């Protein structure tokens, strides 16, 4: 198959890459783009480890063709910290031990960030249902949910 040349914006920076037409965005991120922070847990949209945002909308990168990213704004885990300044969610996850093995963490953070951008005061139930698409096998989700809610509270307090 002839490769396709794609021009897009990733974490605010212009990006271009070559890919097969049937490559997913996850394939492109982890392959030619060298952005391995998004993980493949299932390649079928059931685990959320590959979560990214496209034009600020939360999606599974394994359920999107790489070619579709042309002309859109892609945000991945690699764009959450600014230089050596961690995003409040990243910092809170560390402080509250909201990760163990870390394989789900990229997706959890991207998904949590997407939630807090839409809803600055989510209830526990809202957090849980929003994150239902992000599987974690290590933590039982307890500390993750607490970290998201505490970050939301911190962010409300500073605003």
């Amino acid at each position, binding site marked *: 198959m002839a490769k396709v040349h794609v021009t897009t914006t990733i974490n605010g920076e212009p990006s271009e890459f070559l890919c097969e037409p049937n490559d997913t965005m996850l394939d492109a991120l982890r392959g030619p783009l060298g952005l391995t922070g998004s993980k493949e847990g299932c390649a079928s949209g059931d685990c959320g480890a590959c979560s990214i945002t496209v034009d600020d909308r939360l999606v599974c990168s394994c359920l999107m063709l790489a070619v579709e990213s042309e002309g859109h704004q892609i945000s991945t885990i*690699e764009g959450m910290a600014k230089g050596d300044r961690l995003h409040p969610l990243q910092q809170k996850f560390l402080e509250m031990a909201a990760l163990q*093995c*870390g394989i789900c963490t990229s997706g959890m953070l991207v998904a949590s960030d997407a939630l807090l951008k839409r809803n600055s005061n989510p209830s526990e139930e809202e957090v849980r249902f929003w994150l239902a698409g992000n599987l974690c*096998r290590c933590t039982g989700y*307890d500390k993750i949910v*607490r970290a998201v809610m505490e970050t939301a509270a911190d962010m409300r307090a500073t605003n």
Partner: protein
Amino acid sequence: MNIVTDNKWIGQRTIRPDGVDKVTGRAAFAADTNMPGMIWGKVLRSPHPHARIKGIDTSKAEALPGVKAVVTARDIVDFPLDKSVMLGIQDMRWMCRNVMAREKALFPGHPVAAVAATTEAIAAQACELIEVDYEVLPWSIEIDDALKSDAPILHDFMKFEGKPSNIAGRLEVKKGDITAGFEAAEIVVERSFTTRPVHQGYIEPHACLISVAADNKTTIWSSSQGQFMVRAMTAYLTGIPQSDIRAIPAEIGGGFGGKTIVYLEPLATLLAKKSGRPVKMVMTREEVMRATGPTSGSKSTVKIGAKKDGTIVAAHGIYYLQAGAFPGSPIRGAVGCSFAPYDIPHVLSEGFDVCSNRSKVAAYRAPGAPIGAYAVECVLDELAEALKMDPLELRLKNAAKEGTKAAHGPVYPRIGYIETLEAAKASPHYKAPLGKLQGRGVASGFWFNAGGESSAQVNITEDGNVVVTTGHPDIGGSRAGIANICAELLGIDYRRVSVLIGDTATIGFSNLTGGSRVLFASSIVATQSVEKVIQTLRERAAKIWEIDPDAVKWDQGAAHPVSPNAGQFEPLTLAELAEKAPSMGGPIGAGVQLNTQGADGGFGTHIADVEVDVDLGIVRVIRYTAIQDVGRAIHPAYVEGQLQGGVSQGIGWALNEEYIYNKQGKVDNPGFLDYRMPVCSDLPMIDCIMVEVPNPKHPQGVKGVGEVPLIPVMSAISNAIYNALGKRFYSLPMSPPKVLEVIDAPETRQAAE
């Protein structure tokens, strides 16, 4: 919570050393790395549950442009069936046939060949060009089917009681005489239970990247629970000497026991050797579910007899566990752990290892023990009801304690089981009111825990900080625990301690990450290494002050004279001594390698509240408290994390997780859509009460904690459903169709005799 607060670092919720990389996506897991010239490997797998392999023709695959190597069973070292070769608990006879089918394909998904090519797509296409001549054979998967008199026998050499059989072995644990014991019982409850196979469910599929030079020097980068196991198994199966293999542990995305053996590494090594190119192999989720080892499905019968005052006098457990394609189900865990929390004079616990045409079982968090405990703890609940006793009181009355001789052998030292029961009784959860269609259940559990080999090195940097190298992949936060301990012992800020995991070339032998042993074992060798370093630091200070080393103490990160009589000297800090090191005798560091001892079993007691939707049969866990004797919580958040993670796996096992097979004997739900693990909205907060009864044999009092949390869960939930509905369940999972069937069934209650 009972957390030690007079330590500066031990018991504190420090930030884990690997944390920043993990929250920024920088942490390198096995599939994240590439090497120049890398090619891709794929596996061809048997479509049949049971088939003799008459021949394999790989010529068309080899001719496909882009294909660089093909591997079949011929390339794997053979371990003849008549001689057992053990590596830990794994028998290489089965391992060599598990990584690639030899005489027979024994489950759908069993590898029969592997290909390496310049792209994944070409490798996959090449697999389809391999022609395998199968003689399809009848198959059986479920224990009952595998035990039928006309069942297809998987292994011709296997005999049980003189006859060809799928029973690979029997294990027994015995104390006293149960015949006499049951005669003295005034009340007896006997029940039978079944469970389905469940998968560890790690989110990261198996992956490796391997490079083999022309002189056999091999570098393995892989996701595993033991780089030394990876090295050893790969050496055994490829014939490359261990000293030529460097196995580097990547960050691991979950294991829970499922990554304590290898699937891909020997294949990728042979492909890399044949092709002269680094080979990367990553399993798909479907391959993980079909071809790696879930735990056993099971059939158990448990009979417990007691006096009317609640004293348990006899207990008999019979556990049949599926091994899958090769012998090795975890009957040891079922047999040894299920009655272990109790002081029972007469016990017989028997386990049967049953082979059948499904993937070979792999370890899953306290292997075998959850299956045994599920049965025993449910029977105890019925016994308590028949005796009109509170279920915690029944357990307290019969609780094992210091001096109790366990049926599986040891005499218990100071243990904290009773403390977990008392904490459960006293907890706000246990007293909280319940609403309509809500119920509460309790259960306990025990796991052996382990010590085993561990190595550590502690080196002081030239700028006066600390690098600690340990030998076990970190799946639970052990690096944070080690950092806490080393910072505490040296009296320095936690952030000055760097903890790394070495590979097989850079650290001494360290046994698997599993058995709830990593922090226990690695902290012993790290502690001893730090103690040696402190000894050196005291000697250096003594030399500078020209006093006896015995007159120097180490405190708060510096050497001090032990008393004013020893001399008036300003303290010498770690940084100062490090700076002077080259002129004072050389580098400051020490390493220790040990086969650590003194690990004692872990005990837990859980309280589960459920709510049942009786029209749909849906059970929801609405409140959960896990109470465990953790010895000493070096890093409380990561100890809690083990409890919470184990509980959530148990909730999945109790309610919705199961392997479903279709009529062709293939797994019908090989993905996260229909293999239903708990999602975030399924679970409540999981409260933890950590009881600390320090382990007297460990320098910081540590006990292993990781495995116990899975053990009581399924029974606690089953007992809770009974409390809500008045209906007992005797099989897992308690999924909605099954729950509704029981709810709608006419009243059939099995009474105690």
